[in-house]
């Protein structure tokens, strides 16, 4: 065993020395390889982190939201519907939910305006950190809003939601029901939608079915559907980026193949001499294996560690830039630093194995060089 170890150690030594002799070529290979791994790992960590966050946070969302549809579009729901829904067996509470959007024409930003279950007193608002950043306000300041009647509405900032809640609250503006109705001239007797709690989670789907039977113009949205929507969105998003990653990977494999296949005269002579001094084909293959492994392992480690820093410590600036749209308000959030063995395994299989396969045939060809013909050249 120690003999075998010592032998591998010696061969690794030769492999590293040989890599070092062609420093430029191998360094460029390492950089491109590491970047490929970095890109794939960043996409994977980022979308998995967002997916996890969405699933955990939305597990606290309302069990059931009931919207009213009018001509196939979301419409205001009469609060009277709540009475009817409350009589369905298994339903706990039914609460009207008031929410909408306020477009801030000065800053070009959209706010989500909502009345929470425990609203602030009339005249006061609780705002998300994104709005506070954009409008440069602190708790106690007054914020002017233009109501739908073209009247100025001055609301005092009671509290700014904590920075850790950015991902759900950055554009949130929580206010009292009276202010909500005044701001939007919102008719009484209706709500944006209804939230329904169901005591027994097993019964949610049945309750949803009965709501549609009783009120055919409504659309219930289950909490599971909300979570599934986000899972699908991030899979789709991650999928799109992975397609790009696939193209990059393919380009890299071609690059690696080219590097490995084009044996320079110097390399051929080197192998010829090694064979001449008694190395066997198996030894040359081991040498080539160690050359490939040291490059791919180093690139894998560099790429994943850099991706970890990029996604979790630097908040993924490269990815966020490509995902952002035209909005003015963006959440400034930090994902929970969490990677798992499965992700690393997938990355390893996606990046190291194609490289190994791409260099397999060229190594074999190199190992079977006839020393005599090489040294004669």
């Amino acid at each position, binding site marked *: 065993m120690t003999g075998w170890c010592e032998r591998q150690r010696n061969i690794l030594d030769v492999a590293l020395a040989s890599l070092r002799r062609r420093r430029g070529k191998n360094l460029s290979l390492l950089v491109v390889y590491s970047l490929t791994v970095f890109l794939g790992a960043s996409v994977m960590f980022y979308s998995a982190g967002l997916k996890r966050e969405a699933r955990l946070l939305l597990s606290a969302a309302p069990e059931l939201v009931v919207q009213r549809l009018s001509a196939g579009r979301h419409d205001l729901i009469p609060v009277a519907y709540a009475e009817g829904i409350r009589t369905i067996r298994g339903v706990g509470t039914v609460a009207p939910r008031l929410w909408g959007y306020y477009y801030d024409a000065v800053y070009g930003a959209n706010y*989500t305006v909502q009345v929470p279950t425990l609203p602030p007193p009339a005249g006061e608002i609780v705002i998300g950190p994104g709005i506070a950043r954009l409008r440069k306000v602190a708790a106690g300041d007054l914020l002017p809003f233009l109501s739908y009647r073209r009247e100025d509405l001055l609301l005092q900032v009671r509290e700014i939601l*904590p920075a850790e809640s950015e991902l759900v609250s950055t554009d949130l503006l929580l206010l009292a029901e009276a202010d909500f109705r005044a701001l939007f001239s919102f008719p009484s007797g209706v709500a944006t939608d209804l939230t329904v709690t169901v005591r027994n989670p097993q019964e949610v789907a049945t309750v949803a079915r009965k709501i549609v039977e009783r009120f055919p113009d409504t659309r219930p949205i289950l909490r599971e559907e909300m979570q599934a929507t986000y899972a699908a969105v991030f899979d789709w998003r991650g999928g799109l980026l992975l397609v790009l990653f696939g193209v990059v990977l393919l380009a890299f494999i071609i690059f690696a193949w080219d590097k490995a296949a084009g044996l320079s005269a110097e390399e051929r002579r080197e192998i010829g001499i090694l064979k001449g001094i008694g190395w066997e084909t198996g030894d040359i293959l081991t040498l080539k294996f160690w050359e490939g492994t040291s490059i791919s392992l180093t690139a894998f480690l560099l790429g994943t560690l850099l991706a970890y820093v990029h996604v979790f410590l630097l908040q993924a600036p490269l990815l966020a830039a490509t995902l952002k749209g035209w909005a003015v308000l963006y959440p400034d959030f930090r994902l929970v630093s969490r990677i798992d063995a499965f992700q690393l395994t997938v990355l390893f299989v996606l990046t190291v194995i194609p490289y190994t396969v791409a260099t397999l045939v060229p190594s074999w060809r190199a190992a079977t060089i006839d020393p005599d013909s090489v040294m004669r050249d």
Partner: protein
Amino acid sequence: MPLRRADIFGVLTASGLLLLLALVLRGSGPDPAEADRLTRLQRLVTEAQLTDLALLTEARYTRHPTQADHFAPFQDHPLALDHFPSGMFWSPRRPAP
């Protein structure tokens, strides 16, 4: 005796792998601070009755994808190009419950 290249490589690679392993373990163990954060955020989500993440605020269907109509990104006709760049990242269908 000077350090051999193979040994330097071995030590560096092993420490890299160990670091990676440590990062995996760090994420898998129980984390009281993280549990507290989640409890606080879930309370906010419940109290404000939120249904969505505030990731993209430019349009109704990107701010509240779970509350939007199925066809929201393709409002005008099924093949309409989306107005907002972030719509590119929107899946055109809603998963079946």
